[in-house]
């Protein structure tokens, strides 16, 4: 595993991890997007035999990152779970109890449709659509930036939702796509944490910074 890469924003240090998350050093916080917990279970319940190993692996990766950075807080910028409740989520609840000291904030995403009671049981603080920690703001969908009040407009936004990916032209006619971190001047789009997700190909501007996740390495473009 490659070491995280430092990315500085507004004098804050963000460590970009090839495990698809950001470590915010000053706040001792891990930022992730789009975990889509229970997605494989949702498929399986419908008779589509997706191997469940992928879910377990996602949880283990998250755990490893929490241990690695020894964080106090986890901010999820939306889509913690994939769909309606299913048994796979029980594994998450059990796992959550082992991290009882961890504070979890969830900026509600379009997939976060579970009952309030579930979030209570999971000890997750659910925020309706934004979390403000100046000079930063956390949103699920970049589009909701438009709804912000004037005084919040200048905050740097961390978002998810998009599952950004980048297409790299290889030799011949082949082009390969990789999930990526996408840092623009006023916002950042995080890659989906779950590996059971597709990608949406982004088209970066000249001054944007993109970290492609190739296997388990980061490639800065």
């Amino acid at each position, binding site marked *: 595993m490659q070491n995280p890469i430092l990315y500085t924003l507004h004098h804050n240090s963000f460590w970009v991890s090839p495990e698809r998350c950001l470590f915010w050093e000053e706040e001792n916080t891990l930022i992730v997007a789009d975990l889509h917990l229970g*997605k494989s*279970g*949702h*498929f*399986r*319940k*419908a*008779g*589509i*035999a*997706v*191997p*469940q*190993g*992928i*879910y*377990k*692996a996602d949880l283990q990766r998250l755990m490893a990152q929490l241990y690695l950075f020894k964080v106090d807080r986890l901010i999820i910028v939306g889509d913690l779970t*994939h*769909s309606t409740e*299913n*048994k*796979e989520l*029980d*594994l998450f609840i059990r796992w959550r109890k082992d991290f009882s000291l961890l504070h979890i904030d969830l900026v509600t995403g379009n*997939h976060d449709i579970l009952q309030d009671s579930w979030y209570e049981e999971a000890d997750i603080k659910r925020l309706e659509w934004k979390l403000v920690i100046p000079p930063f703001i956390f949103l699920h969908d970049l589009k909701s930036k438009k709804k912000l009040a004037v005084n919040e407009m200048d905050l740097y936004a961390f978002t998810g939702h998009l599952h950004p990916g980048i297409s790299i032209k290889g030799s*011949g*006619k*082949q082009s390969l796509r990789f999930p990526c971190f996408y840092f623009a001047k006023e916002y950042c789009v995080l890659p989906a944490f779950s*590996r*059971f*997700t*597709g990608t949406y190909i982004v088209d970066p501007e000249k001054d944007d910074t993109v970290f492609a996740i190739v296997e388990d390495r980061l490639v800065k473009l």
Partner: protein
Amino acid sequence: MQLLEGTQGFNIIKQWLLQKNREPFTFQSGTWQHIINGESGLVNAPTGCGKTFSVFLGALIDFINKHPDDYQIQKKIGLKLLWITPLRALAKDIGRAMEEVIGELGMGWKIGIRNGDTDIAERNRQKKQMPEVLIITPESLHLLLAQKGHAEFFRSLHLIAVDEWHELLGTKRGVQVELAISRIVGLTPQPPLLAERGSCISESRMYPMVWGISATIGNLEEATSVLIAPLSARRGVGGEASQIVKADMNKQIEVESILPDEIEKYPWAGHLGIKLAYKLIPIILESKTTLIFINTRGMSETWYQTLLNVCPELAGSIALHHGSIDMELRTWIEENLHKGTLKAVVCTSSLDLGVDFRPVETVIQVGSPKGVARFLQRAGRSGHSHDAISKIWFLPTHSLELVEAAALKNAMAQDVVESRQPMMLCYDVLLQYLNTLAISDGFVPESTYDEIVSTHCYKDLSQEEWRMILYFITQGGQALQQYDEFRKIEIEDGIYRITSRKVAMRHRMHIGTIVSDTMMKVKFMTGGYIGVIEEYFISRLEPGDVFTLAGRHLEFVMIKDMTALVRKSNAKKSIVPSWQGGRMPLSANLGKMLRATLDSVSQSAVGSRQSTVSIVTPSVAEGRQSAPDSYRDGSQQIIGSSPLTIHHSPLTKHPELEILRPLFDLQEELSHVPKENELLIEQIETKDGFHLFVYPFEGRLVHEAMAAILAFRISRIHPITFSFAMNDYGFELLSDQPIPVDDTNVYELFTPDDLLNDIQRSVNSTEMARRKFRDIAVIGGLIFQGFPGEQKKARHLQASASLLFNVFSEYDPHNVLLRQAYQEVLDQQMEEVRLRDMLNRIQHSNIVIRFPQQLTPFCFPIKVDSMREDLSSEKLEDRVRKMQKQLVE
């Protein structure tokens, strides 16, 4: 055995034919005899000469013979004849023809049709009372098997007919037919049951007969045994042999090539055809109706436009027919073909199948048909009375294709036709089928296993694989025990069933094996549906771009609700969509005939040799083959003494080869025209770098794989990187350093030893498998496409095939569907068997390595194709002209 003549059924049918001034053909009465004997088999007859009647009337004769006194009043007696056809469009015509016979014989049988177009009311009527004859597609038949109590439908079934079996064989739809037959045969009541009902028919007679109807293919015997495999398995070895009845129609086919006035010595694919378009006009005007077959949908759009430009008078009487055009419009075209109101139709393989269009007098094939069988089938579209000559014109898209025309003629003279290889062990179709059984009455693994291995496709299915498949459909593969709620097939009292109505409904929506690309509808802003187009093509368009579909210039406006909205455009230029797929490789047979045809050219023209010649003889001593004598002309003289003189012999009897003489002379002068037992390799240095051209004539897929393998093998000798290009005749390796291939290592480089390993190391089979996985995942039920009009509700169940491929590769690498994807890459993408055959052939031939000083006529088209990828078509044309000029000077 009862003799056909003298039976009441035969007399009645013969009388009926006589009233129409017809007499049974020998192949028809031959088939009838087998049917009244209770035998199964296959009728081999071309379209439009009474093949339907061979089996249908046979079933009637048999019925009349069994019910001599009351055959006319018998009705509502349940399904007697199941007629499986691959094409929905055919059902109506066949049904009409059958109804006519039934009516005129005064019988009470009903003819029913069941396919995607059949409405629910009709289906329900059929469920209550099956018609005596049911015309059905493979998909609808599986839907019938998905119904509870389906055994009842087939209780009285006497004969299963499979129409156009040559089209189904070798496809997954064909596998569906195999499975359906195995099920129906398996449902046949056991003898004691019948005995109780007082029947005394011998055991072998209780299974329904199975009859295939097929055009000519190279492996008719195999085609027959695949079809009746479930019967053979039940009856055991030594059961009745299958019967093959061939219609000896001896249809005369005449091939005429449209020759360019001047032969370009440096041919290239893509522009010659269009330049010759004006030569088609008199042909079109002179005949009643002409079909013009084009190989790709994209080119058919271009041709349609070109013909209208060359001859504007054709407007209104010429139409375009391909798979992306609105169904309604296609039906309209087909109806007008019947009526004879259309002068010409530009079409793709979309008109290969199906009913006969009587008014069609002339057929034109543009570009290589890639195979003999396909060419024959298309030729047969003209000249309908069985003694008429079918005429087909061949229009080359580059001059070397004229050799193919000559090769096709040779192939026809020698009756060389391609085989269709049946598919083996399609796990995806099997998974789908098991789910189908599970939503009907459920299944018991033991007896179902016996039924499944009675088919040809699954005869090698091991118990181990069977257990894996059962595990997959009941447990869902790898799971986290207490955190899992996998629910598909459940086991109750040993019976495997799907009990969830939702899952069952979802499965019913997905029965079928035809997976299309994600298509987008194309509509005018003002409404009006034009056709469909691949989503990926639309996604690359900007609003304002103009493209061509269904022969119209359309300006792209926007995408709304999965529909591309367009408006008419008067723009002169437009983008012609390139539809994916459809690029068939040259068949093995045609490749072989090409090599033989070139042999005759090579034998007849021998020029001087350059000094940089090396002929390599194989190091293997035994088994070397020389060209068969039949391709050699005894009268020729081979003299190579005087420089640059070329001796012509009368051997090249085909005008196509005669006109190509200057090209062959140049090829021989610069390099060599390979004989049948030779493999030509050219090494050429140009400013682009060092080229290695190899000409196996084995089709582009084999060449693609071979290029990668050869590059890998060379790079083991010496580190070197290459780029590849290929066409149906040969391939190119290009490098910036000299390529170390010479007579010391060339046989080793083309060895079949260690082939599988080298394939795995050289070809990106993962990427190829990923592409194959898409269809497999859809057929195997991993991809849920949503209910029509309800896409949004199923959003949480969407995952792309590519993503699933990654997930399975990582977390369930032994999954059967994944394995199948890799196997399909080997079988279909790499044509591994053919690759191996080729390498074996090369080991026993002379490898001729030449070092021409400049590009040769043979390598030129490959070179142009390699430039095609980075250049627009106009720039390409300019570049090619320049190159041609330089080379000729």
